[in-house]
């Protein structure tokens, strides 16, 4: 694609505050084609970057340097599934949920399940080291990636890792995952497939206050129970979700917790009872239990599509992604409320509480530049507070272009210099995904129309 009207689709991803059009978008169908494209870019000195489904919420697929966008959506084959050895080999454009659907009936699934799993690609998940609601027990993408095939910026391609464990040499797979497309273009992924839990107990705890809910989280983990998922929704988000899905959320409650234990049928009731007791001890008004698969699925649909439902609350919203140690959740949530008040913004919260991974949703109207300014200021304050509490500015969305200014707050110049050294080993000329992740000299983003416009 190269016509302006086509390119406009690719000017941004899920982070719509900053935009820039690529000069051209290409759709390779094989590793060989990716090699040819990358080599051509190298010869002409044109920057390039890979893109999956464009669901990044941090500008991970923003073509800041213009150039060639390599859309991998046509490399979408599931190449191999080996149940006995518990791995699958996929191309990067395979949508996350396709793989799990493909495994259905065999008792296996692909564990990382970000909320966008119906759209996001596994290649994109590899780039950002995506998480999802089940990371507390099952880990994030990197814990499920065994090997990669990567086309480097000079057109060479390498294979790292593979279906066997403990391969000799450095764990390059481990650092390529989460490198946000700055090391090259991933063209093949070996992933671990995971056995399905035999059973679930899904509980919904209703709390008067956010503090009661967060204390419950700490106590559950403190009791030695690792739930499959532990998700919190505050009162504001509940209103939106309830209007959209009619699950039956109590609209007057301060917060609800979705608490799910999974695994073998045996022992699950013991865990569910222990969790119920802990919630009650922390002042839960009630603890409901999903009594059927249908109820459980509706509850999860409500959770995963909460962001979509937010459209009912305000014309625009900006989802933040921060992390604090689990025990600091009450403090960060109080801080978020205070920040919202200070900037006269409504902020809804729906997040992976078990990991301490918060997702405050700042509601605003993008047509009002004054509100946009306040949203950006409030976001920054929230992230600064995460750092102050010993956390991080991103748990799963990535640095992208959005949070590049926070890197020097999280890391010392020495830390960043070592990361830059690593990038030079892979991407010495900086043609691949320029101006991402690391704030380096020569990476001044031309935020010409970093248009402070819409934020989704």
């Amino acid at each position: 694609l190269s016509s302006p009207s086509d390119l406009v689709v690719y000017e941004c991803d899920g982070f719509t505050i900053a935009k820039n059009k690529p000069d051209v978008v290409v759709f390779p169908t094989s590793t060989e084609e990716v090699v040819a494209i990358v080599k051509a870019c190298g010869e002409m000195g044109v920057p390039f970057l890979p893109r999956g489904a464009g669901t990044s919420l941090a500008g991970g697929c923003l073509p800041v340097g213009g150039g060639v966008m390599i859309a991998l959506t046509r490399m979408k084959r599931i190449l191999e599934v080996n149940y006995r050895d518990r791995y699958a080999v996929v191309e990067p454009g395979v949508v996350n949920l396709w793989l799990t659907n493909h495994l259905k009936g065999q008792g296996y699934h692909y564990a990382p399940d970000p909320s966008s799993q119906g759209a996001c690609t596994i290649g994109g998940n590899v780039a950002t080291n995506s998480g999802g609601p089940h990371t507390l027990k099952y880990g994030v993408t990197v814990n499920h990636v065994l090997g990669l095939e990567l086309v480097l910026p000079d057109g060479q391609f390498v294979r790292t890792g593979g279906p066997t464990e403990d391969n000799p040499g450095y764990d390059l797979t481990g650092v390529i995952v989460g490198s946000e497309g700055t090391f090259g273009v991933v063209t093949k992924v070996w992933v671990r497939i995971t056995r399905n839990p035999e059973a679930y107990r899904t509980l919904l705890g209703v709390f008067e206050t956010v503090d009661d809910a967060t204390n419950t989280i700490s106590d559950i983990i403190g009791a030695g129970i690792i739930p499959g998922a532990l998700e919190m929704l505050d009162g504001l988000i509940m209103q939106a979700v309830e209007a959209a899905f009619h699950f039956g959320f109590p609209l007057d409650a301060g917060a609800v917790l979705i608490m799910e234990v999974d695994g073998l049928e045996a022992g699950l009731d013991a865990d569910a009872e222990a969790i119920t007791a802990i919630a009650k001890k922390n002042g839960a008004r009630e603890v409901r239990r999903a009594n059927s698969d249908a109820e459980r699925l509706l509850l999860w649909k409500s959770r995963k599509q909460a962001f979509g439902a937010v459209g009912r609350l305000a014309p625009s919203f900006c989802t933040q992604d921060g992390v604090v140690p689990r025990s600091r959740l009450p403090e960060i949530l109080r801080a978020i409320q205070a920040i919202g008040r200070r900037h006269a913004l409504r902020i809804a919260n729906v997040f992976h509480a078990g990991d301490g991974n918060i997702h405050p949703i700042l509601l605003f109207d993008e047509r009002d530049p004054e509100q946009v300014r306040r949203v950006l200021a409030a976001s920054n304050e929230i992230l600064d507070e995460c750092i102050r509490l010993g956390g991080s500015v991103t748990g799963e969305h990535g640095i992208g272009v959005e949070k590049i200014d926070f890197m020097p707050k999280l890391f010392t110049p020495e830390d960043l210099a070592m990361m830059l050294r690593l990038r030079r080993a892979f991407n010495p000329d900086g043609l691949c995904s320029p101006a991402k992740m690391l704030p380096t000299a020569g990476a001044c983003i031309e935020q010409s129309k970093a248009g402070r416009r819409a934020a989704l």
Partner: protein
Amino acid sequence: MDAPTCTIDGFGPLPVVRPDTLTALGELVREAGARGTALYPIGGQTMLDLGVPPQREGVAVDLCGLDRVIDFPARDMTVTVQAGITVAGLNEIIGRERLCLPLDIPLAAKATLGGSLAANASGSRRHGYGTARDYVIGINAINDAGEEFKAGGRVVKNVAGYDLCKLLVGSLGTLGIITQVTLKLRPLPEQQALVSVACQDSSLEALLDRLHASRTRPVTLDLLNRPAAQEMFAQANLPVSEAPWTVLIGFDGNAAAVEWQVQQLRDEMCEAGGEKLALGLSSPALRASSLAADWDLWPKAFLTLKANVLPSAVAGFCRNVTNLGQPCYLRAHAGNGIVIGHLTEALAKEQAAGWVHVWRRLASAARGHLIVRRCPSSWKDASLVWGPAPPAAWLMHAVKQQFDPRSLFNPGRFVDGL
């Protein structure tokens, strides 16, 4: 008093320096950098013979003086410690809060955390819990300029910056000196059980396939050949099975889940194998002995080989190497495809190299690799110890060149001379 020295895998003696502060360590590295002196980081010295012996004079840097607990927020299930802490010391501290690091590191009383991570030590529970890369969420290290750098953080979920934790874990100290680590922990299980199943040669594949498909979810799945089973059972004062193969299946979790799994496995095994299977619930002694993980560093071994193959190929691989005729002691983490084989008989170099060659060919046929964990130091070179260079070796060299352009850290000891 004589200055302390240390011999690393037959090379030495090297002078030992033991910095007690990060500043002192940084200064040491800076000076070494200026002079081009090689640095060999050491901890509990339990795995000094992993890799190729040093070839350059240098200094052994003892990290045992840096062993403080920096932060232990038990309710967050994380801990931040300096790298020189012993694994047993760490386990004791986190155990008081009923937490654990499920890595089964050999010789835990001596082994330091930093050394164990650099060597990527693991054991039986990797089947259920993974390996070091799954637990290190933050890391600090000293770079070639003597500066401390870090990556990751102290929270369990964090994608800010490149994940240098993954790079440093298993890098055998060749990219920098690990000084501090933040670990994700797990709760100590309420209950544990170990079941042993003895098995005839003809039904080995069927048994492992059956276990793969079992409704139970074991956290350990170890296969032992007869000599290894006899050695381990004898150490535990348990009656020794005469069967050619023994599978040890471990469970943990809450009491109800563990009890159900033991019963379920018993039922499944009876259905599958009839009289060929001997089933026994273990005593704690066997559990202790097999899980102690010291097995990988069994002192009686003359030659120790480690293969990583596809899990489905473990039975065939183990049978093939047993049938080679050289008596060996095999333990495999069958669910992960990791096979450790000890040969106790002293061999001539040519003969041993022949065995390694044959094992390596068999591992390769099972889509894996083979490394030599132990052999006489004088035999060693990168190709014997680590096997042929991996396909991404040139990229690994590029990373090494960036991190350690003067080759100060453990020069030449790792894969392909890294």
